[in-house]
């Protein structure tokens, strides 16, 4: 049913990874993603894979959930693979008509796909092991220094958390309006593109009106609960670094050192 769809894909748990401060996780993930681009050898990927595997194991999130993210990029991965295999010049291994596979091509293809896979699974771990609200809180704090350059850190975070809250509500609303119009003989499925686009008007107009009504009501409710922007706001769950965050930082540091070392050696 529609109401079971939620943004993000949090997998509830009490693991040390879950308990890390969201800021540590966001920055850590960012560094990890960057690190994948300094890797130039499969040995480097082995190290990256080891770290990721370890983190996944600790997080207790089943591998199945991790790999879900890969499914969505399967087509992109395939495309990257094919492109690399056939388009890289070098020592020809196999040829058929105008198609040829080179040694370098094969190497590049595997390399790119491994990198893509690690990128996706790495960032999935962040969203799987961090509550969406903690993520927005973490983002808010990390963006805060940019406030003086005009980046509305608090507002961005508030918008994200309101979106998280109301996406299921609007989904339900869409479902209701759709059914109501179908009961009046609406047909959302047949016809050419133009007809189909037109048939969406009876759905979109009431949906927009609903969204505005929600916005007006919510703004009023927030005001009456003394909301006045991010200044002087305190938090029920204040963010604080713990020993775990220190350990995570040390591990990440060692990991980066190894990667940099590997680049010089190999």
């Amino acid at each position, binding site marked *: 049913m529609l109401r079971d769809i939620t943004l993000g894909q949090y997998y509830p748990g009490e693991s040390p990874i879950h308990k890390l401060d969201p800021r540590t996780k966001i920055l850590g993930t960012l560094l990890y993603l960057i690190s994948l681009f300094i890797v130039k050898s499969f040995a480097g990927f082995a190290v990256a894979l080891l770290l990721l595997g370890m983190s996944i194991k600790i997080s207790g999130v089943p591998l199945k959930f991790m790999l879900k993210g890969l499914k969505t990029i399967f087509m992109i991965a395939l495309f990257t693979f094919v492109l690399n295999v056939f388009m890289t010049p070098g020592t020809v291994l196999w040829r058929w008509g105008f198609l040829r596979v080179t040694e370098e091509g094969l190497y590049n293809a595997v390399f790119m796909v491994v990198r893509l896979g690690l990128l996706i699974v790495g960032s999935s771990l962040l969203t799987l092991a961090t509550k969406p609200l903690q993520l927005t809180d973490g983002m808010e704090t990390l963006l805060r220094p940019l406030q003086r350059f005009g980046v509305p850190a608090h507002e961005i975070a508030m918008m994200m958390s309101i979106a998280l809250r109301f996406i299921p509500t609007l989904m339900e609303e869409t479902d209701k309006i759709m059914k109501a119009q179908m*009961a*009046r003989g609406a047909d959302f499925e047949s016809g050419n593109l133009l007809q189909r686009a037109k048939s969406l008007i*009876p759905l979109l107009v009431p949906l927009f*009106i609903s969204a505005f009504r929600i916005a007006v*009501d919510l703004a009023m409710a927030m005001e009456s609960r003394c909301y006045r922007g991010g200044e*002087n*706001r305190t*938090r*029920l769950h204040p963010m604080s670094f713990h020993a775990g965050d220190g350990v995570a930082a040390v591990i990440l540091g060692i990991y980066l050192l190894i990667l940099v070392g590997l680049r010089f050696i190999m």
Partner: protein
Amino acid sequence: MSYTIKDDIIQIDHLLFQYQQEETKETVTAVDDVSFSLKRGSFTAIIGRNGSGKSTLAKNLNALLLPSGGAVYVNGYDTKEKDHLWEIRQSAGMVFQNPDNQLVSSIVEDDVAFGPENLGIEPEEIRRRVDEALHKVNMYQHRKRAPHHLSGGQKQRIAIAGVMAMRPECIILDEPTAMLDPKGRAQVMEIVRQLHADGITVVLITHFMDEAAQADRIIIMDQGKAVLDGTPKEVFRHGEKIRDLYLDVPFAVEMARQLRKAGMNVPDDIIENEELTEYLCSSEAALSAEDDGESAASGETSASGTAPGADAKTVSDATPDAAVLAGDTVLEVKNLRHVFSPGSPFESVALSDVSFALSKNSFTALIGHTGSGKSTLIQHLNGLLKPTAGSVWIEGADIAGGEVKLRDIRRKVGLVFQYPEYQLFEETVLKDVCYGPLNLGMSQEEAEEKARRAIELVGLDFEEIKDRSPFALSGGQKRRVAIAGVIAMEPQVLILDEPTAGLDPKSHKDILSMVETIKNEGNVTILLVSHNMGDVARLADRVLVMDGGRLWMNGTPRQVFSRESELLEIGLGLPPAAEFLRQLAKNGAPVATQALTISEAVTAITQWKRGESQC
């Protein structure tokens, strides 16, 4: 300027609130010279029909709106003084009507923390307050859940907790129960009473007179003015005046009035069922000597213009059961079963083995608590959902079988969802009502002709309204237009899912009499989903009761409502008149309890009293 009287938390001094209407640029006076003050710890109910200014008044009480004239003081602070805005909002918290649109966070406890966070309170203290507030509304065990997984009543309790976590002295609730089912409504009222008992000042705006009767003061608003103000006893004594304002009175007040008309000496300050029961069981209650009861009950009521509906019942009840059964079947459901997400971990059986038939031109009510499968069931009746097993027959054709075109099914079975006004989308009323007929493939002229008929059938003036924007209409009018949009397709069966939800007493009555008109003049078979047992008893000649996805019972209102204790077990109640008679019987009165409506109850009580005087 400050103004303090220690005993009063809120003072309203000649409050005037005006705004400019967008369409016509006219100045509208929503609140017109209202003055009163609220004592600390008091429980005040504000009632009035839609547009009477009560919501606007409420929003003036915590500076969400500022007076155009006069002044409002909260704890001695003038709401116009910007410096004290946060103190005012913190000490007079507000809960709104729509449970969905006032929760900010996707986790319950974070939502409750929202207010204290805004006030800059220390985290440990926020934690304490959040836990305390959640315990107070009995929602602590749900603190980690997401609001969209909660029921309306639970969401409303979270909203109350969110206000309580700011430690206000006063809580203003703007129709908090209007969008809830009876269970949710009872839960919220329970919390409200508890808050009052804890010393919080409560202001409750409501359309439900039985809720208002629980307050220790009632203010009735009409056209921006406070027209009545006093204790419930004082206010409800003005029954006629209240009816003139298109409002209701609590059940006991109406019952007492009808008994007086039938010649009984019932005092006019009775407002609660318990009081009336007690009084009737005492020796004081008697029929006046010269009166034989019966003639008074029939004669006098019609003369004094009773509120529509109070006496109308006997008509539908007179329909003999056999006649209903003998009528031609227009729609039949056989062994219907529906499973959501079969094979997944979310698999749930929504309907199992439901069978019934609707006979032509009958008026059937569908009752059952929220989640009993009512809405899943009605969506099968016009093909919006496909049965997992079983079949739905309309005029001898199985609509799930695939031979019948969906368009033909929708022409035959009209479905009006809850809050149908949310589906309006066109620029003009006429265009909106024509949408259905045009989808069915009718020509423009034909569609407009059907639209005209439909708009007139729902009781609106076609010429006056056809070119107006549906969004500029009043709430009740919007709903009529939306219903007209379905009727214009000229269905043989019309299903209405709680068509009166969220309306004030006047619009509630109007919509129901409109449904009766549609049935009688349009020759339409009606299936009405309702939580209001009084309406069901009065209008339906057949009742379907759903529980846990099964059809628990299918019978006449009298058969269904004779099974009181079983109905209670599945979360349903009795019509107020039936419940009252049972209460009387429980207190030892030898009174017949099968009556379902007020007029029948009057007959039962006068018969009992006459029997008593003869012994």
